[in-house]
């Protein structure tokens, strides 16, 4: 069956959209000093920033999974006001401007604040550490995982969990062998999104964790610095970020396509 065609004038805004999104990226790629690229990217500062970003983002994704999956499970079952409040809480960091997120973390965990002060007195130093980077990244990235997984859990039919229970599976076994595997694609794409968001995290990290090569200066912070020092390096590193982001988004798209079909 042939679908009725879309109106021809749609081509106008579509072209504008493609131009709008594509031109900055193309322009950036055009400005890349391709001959100097290997040298620029192998500079110690650049490598440090790259590995620091990968390390912290991987850790962040792990923390997001450990904390976010249970939350998503609970929210997917919840009805009523508490669930709505929980869902709002889980999603708010997504829409906060990063610098606001950084401020919030600062006010919560800063040295001069009650909680932060108590931590410092107990010998737990959060400020200016890689831990602070992971905290900042997790705060902004976890919602992406929670939202992705909760959506999938909500739309999954109850039959499977009920069948599993009647077959003798305890609640933990049902989770482990049925419910979570069934939303594995959503978990994967949520994790990829969380990783990508953590990778691009800038404002919260800058405000809360500081910027020191190898400790807290992630890739975006390095780019921010190089913007003032050597534009070519900034552009080269930007291309690295864009490439990783593009790969992650492509992986996400592939995962969501591979969702289980109903028998």
């Amino acid at each position, binding site marked *: 069956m042939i679908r009725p065609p879309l109106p021809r004038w749609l081509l106008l805004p579509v072209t504008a959209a493609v131009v709008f999104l594509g031109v900055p990226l193309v322009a950036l790629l055009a400005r890349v000093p391709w001959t100097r690229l290997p040298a620029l990217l192998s500079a110690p500062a650049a490598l440090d920033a790259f590995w620091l970003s990968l390390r912290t983002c991987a850790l962040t994704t792990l923390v997001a999974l450990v904390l976010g999956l249970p939350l998503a499970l609970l929210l997917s079952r919840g009805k009523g006001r508490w669930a709505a409040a929980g869902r709002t809480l889980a999603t708010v960091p997504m829409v906060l401007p990063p610098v606001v997120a950084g401020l919030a973390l600062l006010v919560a965990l800063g040295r001069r604040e009650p909680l932060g002060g108590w931590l410092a007195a107990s010998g737990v130093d959060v*400020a200016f550490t890689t831990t602070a980077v992971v905290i900042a990244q997790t705060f902004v990235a976890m919602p992406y995982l929670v939202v992705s997984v909760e959506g999938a859990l909500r739309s999954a039919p109850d039959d499977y969990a009920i069948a599993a229970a009647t077959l003798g599976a305890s609640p933990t076994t049902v989770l482990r062998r049925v419910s979570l595997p069934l939303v594995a694609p959503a978990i994967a794409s949520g994790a990829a999104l969380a990783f990508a968001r953590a990778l691009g995290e800038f404002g919260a990290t800058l405000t809360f964790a500081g910027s020191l090569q190898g400790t807290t200066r992630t890739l975006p912070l390095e780019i921010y610095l*190089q913007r003032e020092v050597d534009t070519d390096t900034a552009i080269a590193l930007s291309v690295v970020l864009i490439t990783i982001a593009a790969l992650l988004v492509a992986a996400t798209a592939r995962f969501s396509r591979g969702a289980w079909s109903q028998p």
Partner: protein
Amino acid sequence: MSRQLCAGLAAALLLTACAPASSGSGNTDLVVFAASSLNPTFATLGKEFEAAHPGVTVRFSFDGSAALVDQLKAGAPADVFASADKANMDKASTAGLIGNSPVQFTTNALTLIVPKGNPAGITGLDASLDNKLLVVCADGVPCGTATKKLAAALGVTLKPVSEETKVTDVRTKVESGQADAGIVYVTDAKASGGKVDTLPIAGADKARNSYLIGRVLASKQASLAAAFVTLITGERGQQVLETAGFGG
């Protein structure tokens, strides 16, 4: 199909061309690119310039010196450029962006600031900084390069926990008490006022930043630009700069 494509591209280009006009109601604009640390002193002087030249609006773009040079290279319209160090002005000159020789109009020195009350008991660039949270500017930005130079000149090894890209970020971290100490410009310390305690660095003169100002070659307001430079280098300009903590 291709006709629609052309129409689409044309529409897109038209949209970009329709950028809002910069000029107000027939006023002449004087665009000044100035290093961030020159805000608010230049802003004050800009107002005085407008008063002395009716019909002229002075528009400032305050940013990192290197970023400003990039923008000039990319063809951003500006009439005057004031840089926080010689290195960046040289970059601009080498690129042929600056008219007759740029001139140094002031300097800035570095100083140590601590949160009000000096909770960590810092006494200077000495052992009192050991195991304390020191924040400085990153090497590569004018403030940071000066810090590195100063440390080398004084023979001290600094172990900061954070090297910021903007000197204002150093300031805010000290003001909020997140950091135990920070190295900023004297002008920043003055601007922070009562929020911080200042500990002058002995020998800070060894690493003063030279601020240079020059007329942008592509400027269409050559005489106005020159007049502005004169204001900055003249008595009034120097007075305002000194009050803020420059020079000395």
